[in-house]
């Protein structure tokens, strides 16, 4: 058998196991309209996906993952609870001359279900069972706790929105947090800007700055100028509160111990309580499916890499060093609302790479 047929056979086995677990088979186009994906991920996706031009339909993208088309298909047919399994190629453009795969098989499982903790545990435990014996290292996290902590900060809505917008860009998030917490000095450029903006009515200042060209209007500019002046007057996030958030960003512990730690800080950051209780319910659901949560690794910042849409539970199964994650997944409730045209349903899912599984089984 060729490598491709060995991988396909492995994929078919995994796919069959997912169907046996109660999923319906779903297919997705390989050629997807680029617009939706660009609006979702931004220009960064161009570095990670193949964009091609259709002479009549404009920019198209070779399927970089299944989640978006599967969610679209599900939401267009209503937002009822459902379980789906799929298998097929995904295509990842690579900007470096290393051995990373440009095209590989994925087998995936997506659960649309309103009982979030049970669904999280179902997906994780199912993957854990399918990958048993491969000696993989699971890693878990929960972006929902971090988001709840940001929403609970005693600061302006604008600052919270700025932090939430960059939650998947850890470096940028950190820089913003340092600034809002008063840990980073205000740059000379910025204080100069504030001084100039404070010199008069923003609309007059825009007019004085010369002819305005482009679509961004004088009102747009004035609104942000006012927001900047208002923000300059906003007090820094109080040190104890900021310390809790920094602590949360670096929290890494076995899941059960992490839960105890979070329960310890929740009285000082009450906004995270619902997310912490959801975390607790998930651990119970995982334990009832036989997962040892006293040893399951948890990191609050896990899964915050760019180009993701996860907003709750996240997980990966890592193999030997040097290999990409063998499986990964997470919760993406907000995505169903973005793609659902007014409807939404909690959703969680994940993918397994059968090519890597076959390699670990020694079949390749």
């Amino acid at each position, binding site marked *: 058998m060729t490598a491709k047929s060995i991988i396909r056979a492995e994929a078919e086995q995994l796919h069959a196991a997912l169907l046996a677990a109660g999923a319906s088979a779903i297919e997705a186009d390989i050629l997807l309209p680029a617009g939706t994906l660009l609006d979702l991920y931004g220009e960064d996706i161009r570095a990670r996906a193949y964009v091609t031009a259709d002479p009549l339909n404009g920019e198209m993208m070779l399927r970089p993952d299944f989640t978006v088309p599967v969610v679209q298909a599900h939401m267009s047919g209503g937002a009822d609870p459902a379980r789906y399994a799929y298998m097929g190629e995904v295509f990842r453009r690579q900007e*470096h001359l290393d051995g990373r795969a440009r095209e590989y098989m994925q087998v995936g499982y997506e659960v649309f279900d309103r009982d979030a903790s049970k669904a999280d545990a179902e997906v994780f435990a199912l993957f854990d069972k399918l990958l048993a014996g491969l000696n993989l290292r699971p890693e878990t996290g929960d972006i929902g706790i971090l988001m709840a902590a940001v929403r609970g900060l005693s600061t302006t809505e604008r600052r919270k929105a700025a932090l939430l917008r960059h939650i998947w*860009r850890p470096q940028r998030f950190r820089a913003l947090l340092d600034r809002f917490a008063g840990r980073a000095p205000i740059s000379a450029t910025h204080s100069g800007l504030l001084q100039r903006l404070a010199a008069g009515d923003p609309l007059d200042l*825009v007019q004085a700055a010369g*002819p305005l*060209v*482009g679509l961004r209007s004088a009102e747009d500019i004035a609104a*942000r100028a006012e927001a900047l002046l208002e923000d300059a007057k906003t007090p820094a996030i109080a040190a104890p509160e900021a310390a809790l958030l920094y602590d949360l960003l670096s929290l890494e512990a076995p899941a059960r111990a992490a839960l105890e730690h979070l329960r310890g800080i929740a009285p000082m950051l009450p906004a995270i309580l619902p997310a912490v209780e959801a975390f607790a319910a998930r651990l119970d659901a995982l334990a009832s499916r036989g997962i040892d949560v006293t040893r399951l690794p948890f990191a609050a910042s896990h899964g915050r890499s760019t180009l993701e849409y996860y907003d709750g539970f996240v997980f990966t199964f890592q193999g030997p060093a040097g290999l990409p994650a063998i499986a990964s997944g997470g919760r993406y409730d907000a995505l169903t609302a973005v793609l659902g045209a007014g409807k939404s349903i909690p959703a969680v899912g994940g993918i397994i790479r059968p090519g890597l599984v076959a390699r670990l089984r020694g079949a390749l």
Partner: protein
Amino acid sequence: MLKIGVPSKGRLMEKTFDWFGQRGVTMSRTGNEREYSGAVDGVEGVELVLLSAGEIPRELAAGRIHLGVTGSDLVRDKLADWSAQVVDWAAMGFGHADLIIAVPSAWIDVETLDDLDAAAAAFRARHGHRLRIATKYHRLVREFLTANGVADYALVDSQGATEGTVKNLTAEAIADITSTGETLRANHLKILSDGLVHQSQATLFLSQTAVWSAAEQAVLARLAGLMGLTAPAL
């Protein structure tokens, strides 16, 4: 035969010929003035290939030329993982141009990339589409904005007269080459204080993918010795 690609016309060609001439390698065009052929004197075994500066990165990466002269901006923009494919052997000290991000001068609230990012978020919320940046340097600009955490922008392609796109409402900002900034000012645009993407200049590149036979390596060593440069390890 060691093939060296140089720009086929204009000031870039003249300055390239001058640069090599000062280092004992005489380059000239041959045939009638419209014919793209050239010759090299002063060192045996070198063939001159006259090419458009924009095509030299591709020819270097394909290994069809051993050496090539072009702008460092073009190599970085057109070649993925450029430093794995070519070596920037010598900066030549001419053809200077800065690739910069510029926005309308009347944007009194935008001085830095940070401001641009925040303005882009507000713009998208208000206008329903991402803030458009016109450029022909897609890879360089995208990598720069990603590294600096700018989101909610869209790159739109502009192959010329890029400074005019804002006035024509096809973009809100631009990323383009400038040397004196005069065209920017004439089009009511200003450069972001931290908006320098790349400082470009004409550069002599060496292809890592070309076949370097013993004969070609010997020519490279002679050329390096003549020009007072150290030949890169192959």
